[in-house]
């Protein structure tokens, strides 16, 4: 059998695919962060907690209201997005005039509070969430068994990522948004309600995190701490991609998923660290990130 770096081609292909699947979570989450940072200049540390809330809302919908996965995909981002909008209106809004650092500290504190509350209520070992029946089972691709659900994750997150990119970079709405962050006074002069636009953007970014949470619920356990570890990795992804770069975060999300996946084969002990090593190297040679521009 042919081999790549000492492992059979078939196993190698499998690992590549798995890397892409994990990359889709990184991409979805870092996309939300990039949108919020790129347009609002907020370093949103509550992103992990909002991702976790997404999973919990899905669990709640299923177990308390009997609404399944497909409903959760629609309802959850809206619910958690509204929660985000409230936070923006009541708290973040006060900080726009101050240094980025204050927003970071506020969102970090909020994340700790939210996680603590959920942990007190639900414990740390998590709650079961069943996979939607339509997506159970899988396909034998020859080189690996691909669960249908994972295939869905890749496709769906690609669609969401690319549409987000399209809306922000290629439509009129997107250009308003970008203009509003560059020069809010001027845009306001055109009769556009800038504060509302900013609130909606934050809500949208948070909704993306919640959407990722719903998608994660059937494969990882619905766990109060599920976002806490992930958020650090996702921040690294955003930094590598270039803070605020929409396309950068999508491409690096998928790319780093693949690199991490391959590390799990060649040197599994380092699979938690490899992304940070890359981050350090990127920061040394391209401080603005791979796709970022110096501001």
């Amino acid at each position, binding site marked *: 059998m042919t081999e790549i770096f000492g492992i059979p081609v078939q*196993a190698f292909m499998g*690992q590549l695919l798995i890397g892409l699947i994990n990359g889709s979570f990184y991409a979805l989450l870092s996309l939300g962060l990039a949108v919020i940072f790129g347009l609002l200049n907020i370093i949103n540390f509550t992103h992990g907690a909002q991702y976790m809330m997404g999973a919990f809302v899905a669990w709640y919908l299923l177990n308390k209201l009997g609404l399944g996965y497909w409903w959760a995909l629609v309802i959850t981002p809206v619910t958690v997005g509204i929660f985000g909008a409230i936070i923006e209106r009541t708290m973040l809004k006060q900080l726009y005039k101050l240094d980025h650092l204050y927003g970071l500290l506020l969102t970090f504190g909020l994340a700790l509070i939210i996680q603590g509350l959920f942990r007190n*209520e*639900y414990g*740390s*070992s998590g709650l079961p969430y069943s996979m939607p029946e339509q997506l159970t089972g899988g396909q034998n691709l020859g080189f690996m068994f691909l669960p249908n659900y994972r295939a869905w994750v890749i496709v769906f997150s690609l669609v969401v990522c690319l549409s987000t990119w399209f809306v922000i970079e290629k439509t009129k709405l997107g250009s308003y948004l970008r203009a509003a962050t560059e020069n809010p006074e001027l845009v306001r002069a055109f009769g556009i309600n800038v504060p509302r636009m900013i609130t909606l953007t934050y809500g949208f970014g948070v909704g993306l995190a919640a959407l990722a949470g719903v998608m994660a619920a059937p*494969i990882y*356990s619905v766990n109060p701490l599920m976002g806490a570890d992930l958020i650090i990795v996702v921040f690294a992804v955003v930094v590598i991609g270039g803070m605020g770069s929409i396309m950068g975060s999508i491409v690096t999300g998928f790319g780093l998923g693949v690199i991490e996946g391959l590390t799990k*084969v060649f040197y599994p002990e380092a699979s938690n660290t490899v992304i940070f090593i890359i981050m350090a190297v990127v920061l040394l040679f391209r401080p603005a990130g791979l796709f970022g521009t110096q501001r």
Partner: protein
Amino acid sequence: MLRKLGIAVAAAMAVGTAQAQISGGVVKIGVLSDMSSLYADIGGPGSVVAARMAVEDFGAAKKGMKVEIVSADHQNKPEVGSSIARQWYDTDGVDVIVDVPTSSVALAVNQVTREKAKAFLVSGAATSDLTGKACSPNTIHWTYDTWMLAHGTGGAIVKTGGDTWFFLTADYAFGHALERDTAEVVKANGGKVLGAVRHPLNTQDFSSFLLQAQSSKAKIIGLANAGGDTINSIKQAAEFGIVRGGQNLAGLLVFISDVNALGLDKAEGLILTETFYWDQNDQTRAFAKRFAPQNKNHMPTMVQAGVYSAVLHYLKAVEAAKTDDGTKVVAKMKELPTDDPLFGKGRIRQDGRKLHNAYLFEVKKPSESKGAWDYYKLRSTIPADQAFRPEKEGGCPLVK
């Protein structure tokens, strides 16, 4: 002069009472556990509840013994754990540390406790090294260990035909010890270990590791991990059709809280070894009924039950020895036979190993379960003298 006289009188009066040599007049118990991360439901705040119940049931207040409980979160980091232990022993007057899940942290606290001549009652940690090469006159390993798990679960599986293994191992002291102990059992029973992959503690996604396990073609994939790591491995193994493909999973350390988080539909048929199950007899049920309302309505795990049992026996030994000096109390604990409602009668060996029965359970099918927390059926009982590693084989220098 007058003050000296006062002290002398006070001392003379105290001789007759149990507190004769209780440091600070208080027996201070420190529950050191993972309070917030992946093992928090196994020990964590529930262990504090269990310790408090033991103090109540011992009747400390009635006996005039002052007992205080403090707790802290070691975050699964050895350096955090040992610095808390030092502070507790040096400045806070803590006499005994209990629980301490996460073997790497327990090994560190084991060292500190020995240096300070205090007492350490391990319930949450698993590594059998605590009664092997790292054994100490100040440490008792209470609830379970990796040797017991390997022989209980591993042994049962090899004997029913699971003779080729691939390990998914948590990359720290506990995972390594469990893999080593299980591999020995597999080999001793004529089986073969085809490979292993070490994953970092607290990993979310196991698909990559599972794929490696799959391509090894081993009949059994041994999960030498715990808590959230085990839950995610089992969940994702089902997703990747591992069991349907003819391979079987062996959860080498599965707690009832993990089964609860997985749900019976994913956990059914798992074989596991525990030393305590809340629904074993009237006494364990009575304990669980008191315990659950204080712990988010979660039934006690064996680790939490072990904390109860260990603290109860510790207090009995303090009473008997009339001191809370760590080394003396631990010696007394080994001398006295153990007896409590949860683990029944038992004893503690010279190497610090507490002996009691272990049970091989099978997780029920959803249709067999009568309701919440009705999860296990008993497959067999492993008597205390066979459940744990023979004292001579551990290499503990205390054993002559």
